[in-house]
Structures are given as structure tokens and as C-alpha cells.
């Protein structure tokens, strides 16, 4: 049995210290999901705290056959989706740790300050564009790219089928690309006169 499972079992028996260990282990994952969903640090903090409170209150309902992270992120995602549906948020989002993007399929692993700067700028733009997505699509994108969840895990987290997740991710990527194109008119490559249009 790993540490996480031991903490969960102890927390289910009412041990608060064990649950605190779980909060410590998952605070970044939960907070990041909330922040990407809601777009504001204060709202994200409140949503993340509420997620852990709900998890603590309903820990007896947790099925130990499922990964704890999926269960926890499911609570966070549904809470954020619910809040987004109830309120219209204006997302002001600039990551503190993120800097400032041209184009070629670069090597993502290359330790290059210039490419790091480009990636940072792209990340900032991406956060701004996330707010245009439908709340469930946004949750799927965040879980896929920030939390590295597989399509099956996203399906379990958002209570969707795997095919629904695939189509939501497909639609979200297309929408993001459209927004990306709208926001960077200068980055459009010039078509040579002899070439036919893409569509």
C-alpha cells in the first residue's frame, strides 16, 4: 500500500492529519485546475479550499478502487463548472511565473532561453483564450494538458464517455486555434502565388 492510500484510509477513519497530508500533496493540482477554470487567483483559492472541504466531508463515499486524484479533481472540476454556469466571469489572467510568441514545430525539450520566452508568451495568451471555451471543454483541456490526464481519466473525472471527451477535446482545440489565428494576424504565413488555398 502506498503513502497516499494509507493517508486516505486514515483520513476516512477521521484522522485529520492524514487528510492534511493529502491537501499538501494535491494543493497545486487542485488550485491549478480551479485557476485555469475560473481565471482569478481569489476565486481559484476559494474553489480549491471548497474542493478539499467537500472531499473531507464526503470521504466516506470515496471508492478506493478509483484513483484518489481523479476523484478529487472531479469534485474541483464540477464545482468550477457549476460556478461558471451560475456566474459570468471576466477572466483577467496573467500568470506570475509566465513570461511572453512566431512559429516552427520546435523541440519542446530544448533548453533555449529564446524558446522559453516564446513558450511563456504563448502560455499567457492561452490562458486568456481558455475563457472563451465552454466550461466542460475547458475542464477537459486543463485536465489533458495541465494535469496530464488520459482521455479515460478525463472521462471518469467529468462523468463523460471517452468518445465524448475526444470530441470535446477536438472541438476545443479547433476553437483555440481559431482564436489563436484571430489574435495573431501577423503570424499568418504568406501564401505563394502558385499555391492553392488550404480549403
Amino acid at each position, binding site marked *: 500500500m502506498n503513502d497516499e492510500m494509507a493517508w486516505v484510509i486514515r483520513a476516512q477513519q477521521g484522522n485529520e492529519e492524514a487528510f492534511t497530508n493529502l491537501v499538501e500533496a494535491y494543493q*497545486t493540482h487542485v488550485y491549478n485546475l480551479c485557476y485555469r477554470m475560473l481565471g482569478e487567483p481569489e476565486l481559484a483559492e476559494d474553489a480549491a479550499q471548497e474542493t478539499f*472541504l467537500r472531499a473531507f466531508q464526503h470521504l466516506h463515499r470515496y471508492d478506493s478502487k478509483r484513483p484518489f486524484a481523479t476523484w478529487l479533481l472531479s469534485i474541483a472540476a464540477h464545482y468550477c463548472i457549476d460556478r461558471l454556469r451560475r456566474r459570468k466571469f471576466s477572466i483577467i489572467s496573467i500568470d506570475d511565473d509566465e513570461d511572453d510568441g512566431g512559429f516552427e514545430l520546435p523541440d519542446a525539450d530544448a533548453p533555449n532561453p529564446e524558446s522559453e520566452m516564446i513558450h511563456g508568451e504563448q502560455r499567457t495568451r*492561452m490562458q486568456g483564450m481558455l475563457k472563451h471555451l465552454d466550461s466542460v471543454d475547458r475542464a477537459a483541456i486543463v485536465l489533458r494538458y495541465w494535469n496530464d490526464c488520459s482521455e479515460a481519466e478525463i472521462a471518469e473525472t467529468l462523468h463523460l464517455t471517452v468518445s465524448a471527451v475526444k470530441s470535446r477535446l477536438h472541438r476545443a482545440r479547433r476553437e483555440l486555434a481559431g482564436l*489563436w489565428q484571430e489574435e*495573431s494576424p501577423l*503570424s499568418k*504565413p504568406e*501564401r505563394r502565388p502558385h499555391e492553392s488555398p*488550404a480549403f
Partner: protein
Amino acid sequence: MNHRPFEDWLLEDQPLTPEQKRELQSHLRTCATCAAIAESNLALHSARMVSPAAGFVDRFQTRLIAQRKATRIRQIIGTLVLVIGGLGLIYWLVGPFVQEAMRSPADWITAAVGYFLFVLTSIQTLSEVSFILVRVIQTFISPLGWLVLISIFGGLGLIWTVSITRFSRLLQGV
């Protein structure tokens, strides 16, 4: 190659072979739509986690304590409302009778004593009747018959006790 497969590759965001990568690379130089998808995919792949402000766990513990306090207060208020409501209901239902009884206490004291005496005499009569019955039956049944009857009832009682014990243990999951 036309535009379609490249767009699908990008929208599916699946790993590509080196050959596919080369083809896609050359297509991206001419197709603004695919370039935008590739760029946004790249931005997604370079996504970074944002951490909460320091002291998140402490803030959680404070919130947990505050929530528990609020729950306890809600429970106390709920219990008070229930008790007061229940007492009010009892008073509303029984009140008229109590008031009536208080107006003429001699009547209800007489009725209560009468009822008590009725119960006492009934018990006394029943015990006398059963004593006579036993004495009459005794003359019909032989000592061996009594032994058999006592054994049968004793056995049935034992079976009943064992069954109840086992059944209750089963229900408790022991």
C-alpha cells in the same frame, strides 16, 4: 497531399512518425489554419502548473474549523427549533385536555383510581381462574405426560433462544 490529414493530425494531437512530422512541417509553411492549430497545441503542451499562495494548508485548516463551528451552531439551532416545535405541538394537542383536567381535579383523580382498581381486580381474578384450571388439568394428565410436555416446551425454548442469538449475530455482521 491535401490539407485534411494535416488538420486531423493536429486536432487529434497524437504522436507523429518522423516522416509525418516532415510532411507536416512543410505544410505548416503554407497553411495559416494548420499553423494556428500547431501553435496553440504547442502553447498547450508548454502549459505550467500554478501553485497557490504559501500557507494553503493552514488556511484550509482554519476554514475546516470555522465550518465545523458553523455546522455545530446549525445543529444546535435545528435541535432547539425541533424541541420548541415539538413542545408547541404537544401543548396544542394536549393543552385543552390538561386545562379541562386542571379545572376539576377530583373527577380525573377518581377516574384514575377507578381504573387502577379495575386493573388490580382483573389480575387477581385471572390468577384465581388459572390456578383452578391448573388444578383441574392436573387430574387429567399423568406425571409422565407432564415430563413430556415440559421437555417439549423446554426444547422449543432452547431452539428459539439459539435461533435468536444466531440471527442477531448475523445481522451485526459478526
